[in-house]
């Protein structure tokens, strides 16, 4: 493998290096933050269903815990590369810092393919993972969460193993639990609401009342539906909703004179965000193809579902009326398109790391509630979410305006600065 081949960790380091230059970090800080602080590599023996034994490789990478207990997902993947876990653990440090949560960043994984494993074998891996890494995990040390190919089921197995070993009930050991097993209410809405709370703040800055705006959404799944829900409550007009049609395997945009009525469309939507084209047309919606959703004369675009959606090939079809793009999905805009949209079209792009941080904030809430063993009602969760994300937005936006940089850069710099400060204050650097 050539040394110049793509490496996600190196990409993450480069991103940090840029922020470090702007922050003028000293070399010790750079050294500390460029690589993870601790790495655990371990073997998990599992007795397979057919009686044979097999050894699986497990990893837990902790990038930084200066601001608090580390937090990050555990993924199952056949060829988990340590470098991608390193990159993800670093990203978690920035994510928690941008939202100003008292947490650090970590990531972990097991080299395995759940497709080739029975449920029983997967359970053995989860329990083995906790046994092998027991001393380095815990509500006050490192808190895992579900990720690629892992879900609440895996989390509960891990929690149970941990609690069995400690002999205590410690639901704060892990997040991503079902509500009845110590999960947080409002988790489902958190990401979508967070996106729209950011939009609300952005509109405030532009001195536009939400009720005088219109927006177009890409996606109609969980994130988009909740974002739309809040936007509607704010009084905004929904101009268009686009989603992937599974039959045609194409994006179809739905709109209607007088605006989209989400409740009406929801009735003809499958549980997974797919709108039934025929039924929607019967309701009087016009179905359009070819990125129609982003061509609408609206104030706000909210891409919620697909990566790499807005590129240099199609950005020019975005009309001048658009003032805000909020990234509900991960990386929906590619870097080249982003640069042009921000510089030429003067569009405010709320970056994914901030816009979709509602999810990680709510995970933090879950952890807090679990540790207290006291659970909030939904409204309390939403009120705290609003407060957290608004203050995160304000600090990112203020810094961006003050220094004439993009919100994305601003977010990274603030995050790196917060982590670096914590390390310094602890006397590490």
């Amino acid at each position, binding site marked *: *493998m*050539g040394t*110049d*081949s*793509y490496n*996600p960790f190196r*990409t993450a380091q480069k991103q940090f290096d840029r922020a470090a230059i702007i922050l003028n970090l000293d070399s010790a800080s750079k050294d500390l933050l460029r690589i993870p602080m601790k790495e655990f590599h371990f073997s998990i023996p599992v007795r397979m*269903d057919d009686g044979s034994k097999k050894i699986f490789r497990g990893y837990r990478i902790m990038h930084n815990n200066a601001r608090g207990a580390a937090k990050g997902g555990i*993924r199952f*993947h*056949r*060829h*988990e*590369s340590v470098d*991608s876990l390193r990159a993800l653990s670093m990203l978690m440090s920035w994510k928690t810092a941008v939202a100003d949560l008292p947490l650090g960043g970590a990531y972990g994984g097991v080299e395995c*393919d*759940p*497709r*080739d*494993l*029975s*449920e*029983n*074998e997967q359970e053995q891996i989860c329990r083995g993972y906790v046994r092998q890494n027991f001393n380095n995990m815990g509500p006050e040390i490192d808190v895992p969460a*579900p990720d*690629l*190919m892992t*879900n*609440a*089921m895996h989390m509960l197995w891990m929690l149970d193993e941990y609690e069995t070993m400690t002999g205590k009930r410690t639901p704060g050991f892990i997040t*991503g639990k*079902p509500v009845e097993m110590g999960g947080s209410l409002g*988790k*489902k809405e958190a990401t979508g609401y967070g996106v729209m709370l950011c939009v609300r703040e952005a509109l405030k800055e532009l001195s536009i009342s939400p009720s005088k705006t219109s927006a177009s959404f890409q996606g109609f799944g*969980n994130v988009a539906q909740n974002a739309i829900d809040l936007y509607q409550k704010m009084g905004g007009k929904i101009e268009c909703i686009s989603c992937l049609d*599974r*039959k045609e*395997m194409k994006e179809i945009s739905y709109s209607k004179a007088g605006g989209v009525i989400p409740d009406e469309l929801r009735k003809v939507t*499958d*549980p*997974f965000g797919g709108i039934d084209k025929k039924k929607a047309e019967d309701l009087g919606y016009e179905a359009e193809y070819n990125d129609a959703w982003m061509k609408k004369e609206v104030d706000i675009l909210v891409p919620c579902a697909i990566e*790499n959606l807005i590129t240099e090939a199609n950005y020019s079809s975005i009309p001048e009326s658009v003032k805000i793009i909020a990234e509900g999905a991960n990386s929906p805009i*590619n870097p080249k398109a982003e640069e042009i949209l921000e510089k030429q079209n003067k569009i405010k792009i709320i970056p994914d790391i901030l816009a979709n941080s509602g999810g990680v904030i709510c995970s933090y809430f879950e952890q807090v509630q679990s540790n207290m063993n006291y659970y909030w009602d939904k409204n309390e969760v939403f009120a705290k979410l609003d407060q957290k994300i608004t203050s995160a937005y304000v600090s990112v936006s203020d810094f961006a305006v003050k220094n004439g940089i993009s919100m994305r850069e601003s977010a990274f710099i603030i995050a790196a600065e917060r982590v670096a400060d914590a390390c310094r204050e602890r006397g590490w650097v």
Partner: protein
Amino acid sequence: MKKKDSVDKIIRDLRERAKEIKCLYQVQEVLSDQTLKSDELCKKIVKLIPPGFQYPDVCASKIVLGNKKYTDKKFDETEWELGADIEIRGEKSGRICVFYTEERPLEDIGPFLKEERKLLNSIADQMSMQLLHNQLKTVFEEGKLQSTEKKSEWWIILDLLKRTDPRLLVNIAQKMLNYLCLNAVSEAESFIEEFNPSFKKKTELFKDNNFPMSVIETSDIFNKSNHVFDIASRNLSENEILDIIQKWIKEDRSNFMVNILENTGSSLPDISNAIERYHHLSSQGLELSVPRAKSFRVALTRRVLTDQPGFVKIAKENVKVDDFNGLMKVIIHPARSHGKVGGKSSGLFLAEKILKNSGPDSKSLKNIKFPKSWYITSDGLLEFIKYNSLEDIVEQKYKDIGQVRQEYPYVVQVFKNSTFPPDIVKGLTLALDDLGDRPLIVRSSSLLEDRFGTSFAGKYKSLFIANIGSREERLESLTGAIAEIYASTFGPEPIEYRNEHGLIDYLEEMGIIIQQVVGNRIGDYFLPSFAGVAFGNNEYKWSPRLDKEDGLIRVVPGLGTRAVDRISDDYPVLISPGKPDLSVNASIEEKIKYSPKKVDLINLKSGKFDTVDLSDLLFDHGNNFPWIENMVSVVEEKYLRPPKKIGHDYKNNYHLATFEGLKSGSVFLSQIKLLLGIFREKYSGPVDIEFASDGKDLYLLQCRPQSFSKDSRPAVIPEDSFENDILFSAEKHVPNGTVQDITHIVYVDPDKYPSLSTFEELYETGRIISKLNKILPKRQFILIGPGRWGSRGDIKLGVSVTYSDINNTAMLIEIAKKRKEFIPDLSFGTHFFQDLVEADIKYLPLYPDSDTILNEKFLKNSKNILPSLVPDLSAELQNTVRVIDIPSESEGKELHVYMNSEIQKAVGIISESSTISSFDPEETENRKVLNSDFHWKWRLSYVKEIASSIDGEKFGVKAFYIFGSVKNATAGPASDIDILIHFCGNTSQKNDLEMWLNGWDRSLVMINYLSTGNKTDNILDIHYITDKDIKNRTSYAVKIGAHTDPARPLEIKRPAK
């Protein structure tokens, strides 16, 4: 009012049956009294008969025995008579008759019911037995008195036979002699000629001998018989002799079966009667020798079920003669029927008997049920045609196919408006009474289907009927459905198919099965909880841990129609019964995407077959849906959980059909697994079965040897190919199948791909594949690349594509090439595995570090045409993705891939393209059914032939291209063939060329007409372009090298310079 009528009828029927049973009981009571003499017996019984009949007041009976006559009262014999013979030792010894002394309404047999006929028959049979017993007793006692010296028991039997049944005695003597000879008793061998003089003259028998053979004296025969038994007594033990004599006597009682079964003239009712009689006798201890039992089974199978040799072979081992007794009662047939029930019905019958008669496992198999079914024999169709004077229709198949197509709707109407013969209607009425008011499925069970494999699948109709309304309405919709299925025999598709396969001259005989639909009423719907198909062999491995014999289940909620067929917008759940824990789809997103969203069912309100959304069905009826808690999972954010067993809220949760409860230790799964195992053993190979469940029991709906489409059969691996021609070979995880005529390879270099330096470039590779997928000729290119096509997250390990980026490829190949320390594991196409299955895209993993071939030289050094297809790419990407035009790199050859799972061998060979001569309509037939590839395939093969035979220099042709629907694999029966000719000759050359092409055109028009019935003026749509056009990119020249839908060049002979 009507309802009351039918209740009255049922009560009346029951009352009659009760009377008949009472009568039979009383008769039996009399017969069981051993002290009664024959005379007293008759006197008593004759009085017991009339009360068993429908009109006892006017009923009189008479028994004649020898020259004695017994009556219950004094009466005059009338024309309304029902009689049954009393036979002793196969000879008529008397008769029982019943008369109505006054006229009564007509029933099944004159004024008599058919049950009354059965009653009388059984009384006669039982009397025969008892009378024989009495006779024997007398003789036995006499014999005892007379004999001075004590004879052995068997001598007494023989004595008895001498007096009562000399024929049988001789018969037994002959058998004994043969038996002795077979046991090499020399005395017997020397006596055989004397016993049977014809033996001596055996050689003469073969000569043309016009003299009758001399008659042998009876007394002589007796003496000779005695001699035979003397020999026997010297050479065999007493017991042995007694045993075999008894066996032969018993066997003799089944001779009537031999007569019926061997007589080709005997009709189904004759056979039915014989079986019934056999059934009676067997309950009284009739035993058959093994060879005789086997011959009966074979004969019955051939006459009643099907004469397909493979089937008969299995049936004779697994079906008992008595098993036919139950079957005959549910067969509807014309009066003198010689029909059979056909393939589907036979398969199901055989499966049922295999399970019934299979020993140790039968406990867990006991709960497997078979839906109640009735059958109409294959000659029902002919009878229907005759009865309605529709003989003209039979000629339909000889009309031209266009006319058949045009007239078909009319045929359907005529059939639906015709009436059924009374025999059939009567049978159907009985069937409806028996099947009750459940929805029914009416299916075809064709005889041709058995004879020529299962390829008729889908040609004939299967119809669901709701079976609601009054008796008359239900009968009407049932006959309507049968008529429609009869009419489908004369539809254009089966006729076309039969024409192509040389079966047109066979008489199409179509059996019918009428089967209760398995399921429950849920709201206004009727549906099974789940249904599907299971295959003994799994041809689609999604994990290397799966074995082929682990099998495969395709299961859906509701009717199984959605699991049997491949449906483009929905998916069945796939389960490996051998390893149910290895799921096809692991992540929540995949589980959501590949779960069935729709349900087929019968709408009882509209009386029609219907499809509804599973989510709607669960919202309305989730709590009344049997077994649903095992079929669906609740979608929570990021994970799935099972619904609560009781009191689950189906209205406010999202559900996904995952069948998790079926996988995890359910009795149904172990039953299916067991079934596949048992049938695999009995059929000596894998089977496929259709099943359904009402939530309580598992029902088997069909069973037959596992069939493959031609493209999915194990391929014959060519042994004689040169190593130079082999592009790759494989020996691990090889599926079955053949992929032919590949013109392009898209090769993503496994060495260069991981070295791409930016994420964007890695990502871009997937976009290039997506573009190529749209440009390259559909199903004529294959993708070869490093591990894990469709990777997400770990993009370095495989090209990031979704299914829609590769859906036009014919095949997906993953290369596991050693890198540094490890060999990457392959994805087995799992990211979109189910899409590959549904679209029949083949998948093959290659392990080039093992002892196999991968011709990297060809892949890396051939000309890369990527820049001309997708311009403006970086040099790095151009080096990584290579597109190879195989014909232009190999002098017009193409790539053919042969895969054989049985021997775990696959090979990709670059050789001559398959030409017209090897174009086999049968081969393409199954693809035509599955994905209508038929039309473009044959067009393309002919165009290649035309191109290769154009003498470019003679006609002034520089190049020859094809574009449009044939190139794009979308051609239908009426499509033309778009051709582009780069012409540089003069006017006379052009005239010659046009005339030459015109000849081809006419032939193609005729070929198309003969195979599809579509008549067009032209098929070839030829466009000429010149050097000038090409230079200026005018006219059709833009098609050459175009980005979208470019024309594809074909090789020609001696291109003009």
